[in-house]
């Protein structure tokens, strides 16, 4: 805490009194670098005006790590009356809606101690997920009172959570093998599909290891090492030790014991023995360099000792050192240190919460942004313990986002968030949709990938995802969209003017994955918008009441009419009143995302309604309406990015981190890199709880 005050009064504090200092970072730095670290001062600050981002340097290098501004409200006098008015109706002890009960407290201090309750309130109320639509909701001013109180009084204990040790998923395995070895084939394509949780295949808890997978790991390791051996330039690179070892010696633990044997060989006058010693040395340092990269941290002397047994064994068998080297490489590729992202933090820290080690941080960063291992620059920064300096970190985030490897964000993150990866499974009735073929599907996927990648590489505002008046198309897709003058198979940037399209909501990829084989599904589309643009969980149907009936005396002409009837049934109405009207707004595009004026014989009615009561007509207007509250969209995107990047389900305790990312992004025009920087600087990303949850 002292450190914190010292920073605050130093040259780093700012005139507005926000004192945007990274408390978490400060502690981390004390632990790692010592108090002598004084380069902590504000970098650049963006105007709070509405002008768009101008240059790279105007991103704020600091985060809101202090409570929201404002006088601390009194719980009993100010907060409790609001909760009583809006929440107590359903969350009284009698009703206990959703198993959640609000009770009264004798005084402010008692109330503040009930952190679990406030974490849940904090996760639901400021983001307007509660109270649900259709119920009276607190005003903006009242919300602000709650938010300030929550931030100042409740949830003071910060729990950064704990990520279950996770294995590489298929994409990560392939990318890592490419970067580590240099071979270009994709061994993990033959692995069983990864299970996903919370919509992402990076969730440690659901990435399991079956015997089948271990067999595949063995086969893949053999194939990779064989391919490396067969390629002279790759093999030379792997077997030539680096000029020098830049890993500080202490990081390798106890010194090696194997030296004796080599020493014995070196000291004999026999030139053959000296050659053998040199060969063993070469194998040793080549393996060490490879293992350092494969394990994403310095390999210890003790581990090297065991790895060298492979080399000893093959020499003793008279097969020469290379056979053993190959076997050792295979062993590295099947080792848990390679297959899992092991996080242990610095082992000397006894606190409940500790920062990740520098190498663990580098690993989280590179798998988050690249779906692959850290490159040499990250590795060196980790080795010299510079990576967690905010100035270095922000520069690295920018560098990594500009690097071609950040395409993984479009492919892996956006592919799952926006669900465009599901295009591979999409089937369409060829009679109803004669133009639907593999080429079009590929074009759809490419469009959304390129568009997202463009937002990342150009560091644009994430709001552009909703409102961009351009996209990327080749001839096939342009024809599908009715855009003239695009020919050939190459994709290029095209204007969407006059097409009625704007942003991802009108991408054919998304309109297709949210439809069925023979028709559009406003329900699915509404659910998609709620879950992925607004971050609100979609309500779930009770059994036996979903499904559309076609057995009315007069057949409804359009899907919209069918759904209107559906909603006239009381048991369906409550939920579908939230889902359908969102999806209706997208009805002017058919089940393959082509523009249409009619559904069957009837004209399209693309008027829609948001859960909060705002209305719109057509997808472009929906996008514009969503963009009116960029903080809601940014919050949703932040939650998705954080889940994906951490590899675990978000918990109520994460609200504070999410809230800070959104506030930081808001000050920085919602530029993509500002979200990423704030996420990777957040407590959940930088630190971990040392105790497993079940043992606390």
């Amino acid at each position: 805490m002292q450190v914190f005050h010292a920073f605050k009064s130093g040259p780093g504090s700012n005139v507005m009194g926000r004192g945007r200092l990274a408390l978490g970072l400060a502690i981390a730095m004390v632990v790692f670098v010592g108090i002598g670290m004084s380069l902590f001062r504000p970098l650049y600050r963006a105007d709070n005006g509405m002008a768009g981002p101008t240059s790279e340097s105007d991103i704020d290098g600091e985060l809101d790590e202090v409570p929201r501004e404002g006088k601390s409200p009194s719980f009993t006098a100010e907060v409790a009356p609001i909760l009583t008015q809006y929440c107590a109706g359903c969350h009284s002890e009698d009703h206990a809606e959703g198993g959640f009960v609000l009770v009264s407290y004798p005084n402010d201090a008692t109330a503040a101690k009930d952190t679990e309750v406030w974490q849940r309130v904090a996760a639901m109320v400021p983001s307007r997920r509660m109270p649900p639509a259709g119920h009276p909701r607190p005003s903006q001013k009242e919300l602000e009172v709650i938010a300030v109180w929550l931030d100042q009084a409740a949830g003071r204990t910060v729990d950064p959570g704990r990520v279950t040790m996770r294995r590489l998923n298929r994409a990560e395995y392939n990318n890592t093998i490419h970067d580590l070895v240099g071979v270009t084939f994709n061994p993990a394509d033959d692995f069983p599909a990864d299970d996903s949780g919370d919509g992402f295949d990076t969730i440690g808890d659901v990435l399991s290891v079956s015997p089948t997978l271990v067999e595949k790991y063995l086969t893949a390791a053999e194939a990779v090492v064989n391919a490396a051996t067969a390629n002279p330039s790759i093999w030379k690179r792997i077997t030539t030790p680096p000029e020098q070892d830049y890993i500080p010696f202490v990081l390798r633990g106890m010194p090696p014991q194997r030296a004796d044997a080599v020493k014995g060989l070196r000291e004999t006058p026999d030139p053959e023995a000296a050659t053998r010693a040199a060969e063993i040395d070469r194998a040793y340092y080549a393996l060490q360099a490879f293992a350092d990269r494969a394990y994403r941290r310095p390999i210890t002397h003790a581990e090297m000792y065991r790895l060298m047994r492979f080399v000893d064994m093959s020499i003793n068998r008279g097969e020469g050192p290379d056979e053993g080297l190959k076997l050792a490489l295979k062993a590295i590729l099947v080792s848990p240190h390679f297959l899992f992202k092991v996080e242990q933090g610095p082992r000397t820290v006894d606190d409940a919460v500790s920062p990740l080690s520098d190498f663990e941080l580098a690993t989280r960063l590179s798998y988050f942004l690249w779906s692959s291992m850290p490159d040499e620059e990250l590795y060196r920064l980790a080795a010299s313990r510079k990576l967690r300096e905010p100035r270095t970190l922000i520069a690295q985030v920018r560098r990594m986002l500009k690097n071609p490897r950040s395409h993984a964000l479009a492919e892996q993150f956006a592919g799952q968030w926006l669900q465009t990866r599901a295009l591979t499974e999409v089937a369409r009735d060829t009679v109803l949709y004669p133009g639907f073929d593999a080429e079009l599907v590929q074009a759809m996927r490419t469009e959304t990938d390129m568009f997202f990648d463009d937002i990342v590489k150009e560091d644009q505002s994430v709001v552009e995802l909703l409102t961009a008046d351009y996209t990327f198309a080749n001839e096939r897709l342009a024809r599908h969209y009715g855009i003239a003058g695009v020919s050939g198979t190459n994709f290029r940037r095209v204007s969407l003017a006059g097409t009625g399209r704007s942003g991802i909501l009108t991408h054919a990829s998304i309109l297709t994955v949210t439809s069925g084989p023979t028709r559009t599904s406003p329900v699915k589309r509404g659910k998609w918008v709620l879950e992925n643009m607004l971050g609100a969980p979609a309500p779930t149907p009770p059994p036996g009441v979903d499904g559309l009936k076609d057995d009315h005396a007069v057949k409804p002409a359009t899907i919209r009419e069918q759904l209107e009837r559906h909603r006239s049934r009381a048991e369906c109405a409550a939920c579908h009143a939230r889902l359908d009207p969102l999806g209706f707004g997208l009805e002017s595009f058919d089940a393959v995302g082509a523009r249409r004026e009619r559904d069957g014989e009837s004209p399209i009615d693309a008027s829609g309604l948001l859960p909060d009561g705002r209305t719109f007509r057509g997808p472009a207007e929906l996008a514009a309406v969503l963009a009116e509250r960029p903080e809601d969209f940014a919050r949703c995107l932040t939650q998705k990015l954080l889940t994906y990047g951490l590899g675990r389900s978000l918990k109520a305790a994460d609200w504070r981190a999410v809230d800070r990312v959104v506030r930081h992004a808001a000050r920085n025009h919602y530029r993509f890199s500002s979200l990423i920087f704030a996420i990777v600087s957040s407590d959940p990303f930088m630190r971990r709880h040392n105790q497993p949850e079940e043992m606390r």
Partner: protein
Amino acid sequence: MKRFATMSRRTALRGLGATIALPFFDSLLPRAAAMAARPMRLVFIYAPNGKHMPDWTPEVEGTGLQKLPPTLKPLEKVWEHVVVHSGLAQRTADPGTDGPGDHARAMATFLTGVRPHKTSGSDVRVGPSVDQAAAAVLGKDTRLPSLEVGCEAGKPAGTCDNGYSCAYQTNLSWRTATVPMPKEIDPRLVFERLFGDRTGPDADVAVAKRERDRQSVLDFVAEDSQQLRRSLGGSDRQKLDEYLTAVREVETRIRSAQPATDIGQTKLTRPSGVPENYQEHARLLAELIALAFQADLTRVATFVLGNDGSNRSYREVGVAEGHHDISHHGGDPVKFKKLSTVNRFHVSQLAYLLERMKAIPNGDSSLLDRCLVVYGSGISDGDRHNHDDLPVLVAGGGLRGGCHVRHRANTPLCNLYLALLDRVGVKADRFGDSNGRLPSLSG
């Protein structure tokens, strides 16, 4: 990408065409002869989204059935081997206090009889499944303790059924409560797992060296893991244990697996990938299961015709709508008809496997007589999502078939599994939510 295409019978059989021998078997002939005792096998086949029950359930009980119900029609040629069991239930799939998510629960409970822990991400828990309980005993001597195949991979994006992790909806087989056995979709990969590296000249020498190398690699990583394990706690340690158990299992298998049984010439060539056509895909997988049993490479298999909740369309049989969409039929007779068509199409894949196994001699009887086949769904009526009176049948294994048994309502499906385990010589007094053992598997 799966698209619709009309297909001829010829295309359907492509991939099963040319005759190529699998040469490695010959060299193993003498030892194979020692394996005279003919083992029992088990295969579980899962079909998604329930059935149109009026077209599934035989009208009368016992053996006096005059005419097969429409959905079971494809089983005509093997009917004497089939016993339909009505009235069985998997009540662990009921909503209870967990709310919606019947498709995930149907699939997760079908072979486990354990209520899955409702979670979208952390702490996935359900199994183990009955096939794995059997494999722990039957699979001890074979190259693969069990084989898991299916026609539909996991969802490539998006969340799964109402707050359940996708793990519940894509895996039928669970090795332990937390480790699912993922299924192989690609027939080429199934083939390679079974036979791949054992073909060609010098196969024996290459295999021997490779297995020696694998042993030393696995020894190394097991030691590595032990060291790491000491510094881990909680869920991390649990994950590492998953890995370590798998490593040990592969090690044991390399060390002690029995050689395959000679199956002589086979018509199967190395498949080139996942066929676009559903029936071709399903038949190729059925063929591989039959071959694996015949060569005694494994004795337990699970076969998923579709993940529960699957919205695949079956244009091959004239159903363009998604299967899940029509399973919510709302009482519409048009949808009933389509559902029934899809159900029959799935049953005809079962029929193919049964007929195939019946044609393969095994000692003085057929492979089918030495293999018990369970076929069913974890949902009865797709619109109601009910998990009682499930569509379930048992075939083969030398059962006296051609009959329909109706059990007391709500008899746990796990009671049938106990009888099944009993029949293949696996001792168990309880499994999942069992409350007794079916007295008999046939009528």
